[in-house]
């Protein structure tokens, strides 16, 4: 692959006399032990749309939060229009003409559009009295100027997400921003709204505004962006002219990592379907469709990997299967029996176990002992309890048994509060619990998140053991190499749809990288 381009080649595309609108140089930032940014450079030319591409946790948002004055860099300097500046708070960033449209909107739901837009720089008459008439008029003028029509008197809570985003953009423009930062702007939008947004971005750029857009959706970069800076694990890889690369190449640069190849367990060609999902539609808390007509099948003795970039509906999919979220339409069948919109108890009884994404929040009760966490799902069953009275001795025996079998350290930890265990051992407790009741389907969401290499290996082995026992496994992970290594078949989820299901043997990381960002969709 030809990825030999460097900053130099990028500069050839530009008129020499142009001064960068934003220039960030050798930016370092640590949060405690976590070195989030290690010497990132970013040069954004005025009047261009510049993408900041990278996986989750690569440091894109941190970099932009530094530019906006929310954080301050440990090392490095920033120049705006060629002048070096020291931005220490959000107010200063606003004064330098930098405005950020946050992924999670900074809008007061009970306020009108006008109130939201002018908050902090209100138009007043007399002492502090707001001049609503003038504000409404000026905001309407502004919105017409940039073709961002909004009704200034409408309350934000009555507006669609797309309209709310317009308000956010107007808010930034109202403060005279010349440099707009959009953080994952299409993450919450419908595709129509996303199209509108891209048109808006083009309009703004032609009005000589500079736009930096944080994203991991490559097809959108291809459609609107001029330049793209790729960031990986807090370091920048390179900055390219978007036109020179295709989606696959950009995707490969984003996800490139060492590929650990372990021989995969042979798939036993099983015919028995355990989980069958059909035309599933699920909405998130804001009422946005996050799963839009997904159909999937997981067979016995098979690991089906669900690959995709974060926020494309993975969480909603798992929540729907485990009955934590309402299903709008479609069916979820286990052994041919419909389970959607029933209770979690029913899910457990139907033979589904789940390893949740966030073990602290939804996997364990941190204050409980290891033994108590082990029987969280089975405390009502005999012999663990009889007539509401728990049998402590039996529970401890059960826990000791699992602790030995699953090699949970330290040994004899049954009565220790689980928060004292390391992350890897906490995860082992969850796996022990979820596997011990012999489920037919194991739903594993990010089962190796935050674990070290040894623990990751262990988790993978346990998943394989389940596979050997002819169980069905649905593995959802943001780590592409984990999906590639573990799965028999891979379903790629993008924007709430399964856009491809491929045999793991017959694909490559490059192909997956492109699919995950919506590229190559037929």
């Amino acid at each position: 692959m030809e990825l030999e381009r460097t900053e130099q080649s990028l500069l050839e595309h530009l008129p020499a006399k142009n001064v960068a609108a934003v220039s960030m140089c050798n930016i370092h930032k640590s949060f405690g032990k976590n070195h989030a940014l290690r010497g990132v450079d970013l040069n954004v030319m005025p009047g261009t749309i510049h993408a900041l591409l990278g996986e989750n946790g690569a440091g894109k948002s941190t970099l932009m939060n530094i530019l906006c004055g929310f954080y301050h860099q440990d090392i490095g300097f920033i120049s705006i229009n060629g002048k070096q500046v020291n931005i220490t708070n959000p107010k200063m960033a606003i004064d330098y003409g930098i405005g950020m449209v946050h992924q999670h909107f900074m809008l007061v739901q009970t306020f009108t559009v006008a109130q939201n837009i002018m908050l902090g720089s209100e138009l007043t008459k007399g002492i502090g009295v707001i001049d609503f008439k003038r504000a409404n008029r000026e905001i309407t003028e502004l919105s017409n100027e940039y073709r961002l029509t909004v009704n200034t008197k409408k309350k934000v809570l009555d507006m669609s997400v797309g309209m709310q985003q317009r308000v956010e953009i107007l808010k930034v423009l109202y403060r005279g921003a010349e440099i707009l930062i959009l953080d994952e702007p299409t993450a919450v939008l419908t595709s129509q709204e996303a199209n509108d947004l891209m048109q808006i971005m083009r309009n703004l750029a032609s009005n000589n505004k500079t736009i930096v857009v944080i994203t991991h959706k490559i097809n959108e970069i291809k459609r609107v962006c001029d330049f793209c800076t790729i960031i990986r694990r807090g370091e920048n890889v390179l900055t390219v002219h978007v036109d020179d690369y295709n989606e696959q190449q950009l995707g490969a640069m984003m996800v490139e990592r060492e590929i650990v190849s372990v021989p995969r367990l042979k798939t036993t060609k099983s015919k028995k379907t355990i989980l069958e999902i059909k035309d599933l539609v699920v909405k998130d808390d804001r009422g946005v469709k996050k799963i839009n007509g997904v159909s999937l099948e997981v067979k016995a003795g098979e690991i089906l990997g669900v690959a995709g970039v974060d926020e494309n509906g993975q969480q909603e999919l798992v929540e729907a299967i485990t009955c934590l979220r309402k299903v709008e339409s479609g069916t979820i069948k286990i052994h041919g029996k419909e389970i959607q919109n029933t209770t979690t108890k029913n899910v457990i009884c139907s033979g589904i176990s789940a390893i949740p994404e966030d073990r602290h929040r939804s996997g364990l009760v941190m204050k409980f002992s290891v033994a108590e966490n082990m029987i969280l799902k089975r405390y009502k069953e005999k012999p663990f309890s009889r007539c509401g009275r728990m049998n402590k001795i039996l529970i401890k025996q059960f826990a000791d048994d699992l602790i030995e079998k699953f090699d949970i350290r330290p040994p004899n930890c049954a009565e220790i509060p689980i928060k004292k265990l390391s992350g890897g051992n906490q995860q082992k407790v969850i796996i022990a619990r979820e596997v011990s009741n012999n489920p037919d389907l194991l739903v594993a969401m990010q089962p190796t998140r935050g674990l070290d290499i040894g623990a990751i290996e262990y988790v993978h082995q346990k998943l394989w053991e389940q596979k050997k026992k002819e169980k069905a496994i649905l593995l959802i992970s943001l780590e592409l190499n984990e999906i590639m290594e573990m799965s028999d078949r891979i379903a790629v989820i993008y924007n709430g749809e399964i856009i491809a299901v491929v045999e793991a043997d017959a694909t490559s990381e490059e192909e997956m990288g492109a699919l995950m960002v919506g590229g190559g969709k037929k």
Partner: protein
Amino acid sequence: MRIPNNIALIFVGTLMYTTPLLFAALGGVISELSGVMNIALEGIMTVGAFTGASVSYFTNSAFVGFLAAGFAGALLILLHAVACVTFRADQTISGTAINFLGGGISILLTKKLFNGSALSASAPKLPSAFPKFVSNRLKGTDLEAINAISIATLFAFLLVFFLWFFMYRTKWGLRILATGEHPAAVDSLGGSVFKIRYFCVLCSGFLAALGGAFMSISVTSSFSPVTICGQGFIALGALIFGKWTPQGAMFSCLLFGFARECTTMLGGQNGFVSQALLEMLPYVLTIAVLILFVGRSLAPKAVGVPYTKDLR
């Protein structure tokens, strides 16, 4: 029996009992609109009542006592602000602590200052809301009773209008409301959540203490441990029933004030209903109103949630 005179008496009594509640409820409104829960109204009112009664006794000026009470309340609630805004403590716990602290300090100091008595000596009253020539005219008429309306009552009702205007028509109000709903938005636009919340909590303490002071100066004429006796919590109920708005708080305080006046009117030596039952009326009404009419959704969204930048 003279009907107009009786109506005037009920009117005056209602306003008198409404005033302390209204001061406290308005204080609560300010604090809660900025996103800081304030269940400390009871403790602050008690301290206000004590300070008001004793300072006006020693200085022989009701005005000085009234004002001193406000500052005492602000001082006490500073603890709440430091705990909740700076150190992000649980606002319910901090408020509860201040309720106990306020009551305790007041009784302790009363005993110290008034020779072991739990009752402060009687204090001078605040003047009438009406200027001399008006009150002279009313003398001898059926409406003479309304001369008893205190200037502080007038001030409390003017404050309702002022606060409404301040909250919904000025830029500072807009920022306070935004802080209570979405503090991160204020932060992202360069405002200081910290300063806004401190300001609002301190104002809240000042006003609640004025309510307490009015009670001890103009209603009971002295401070005793039962002067406030749950009125802070009734004020809290009033602000919730009033949907977190100054004008709403005013109407619900009038309702509770009227209930209180009813207990005095209907009670007495020849009443048909037991005095003890009647005295329950304002409290029972508070609970009933909260159960029947209040939906949670109207509270400012960020109320009770400490703000940290990391939570953005």
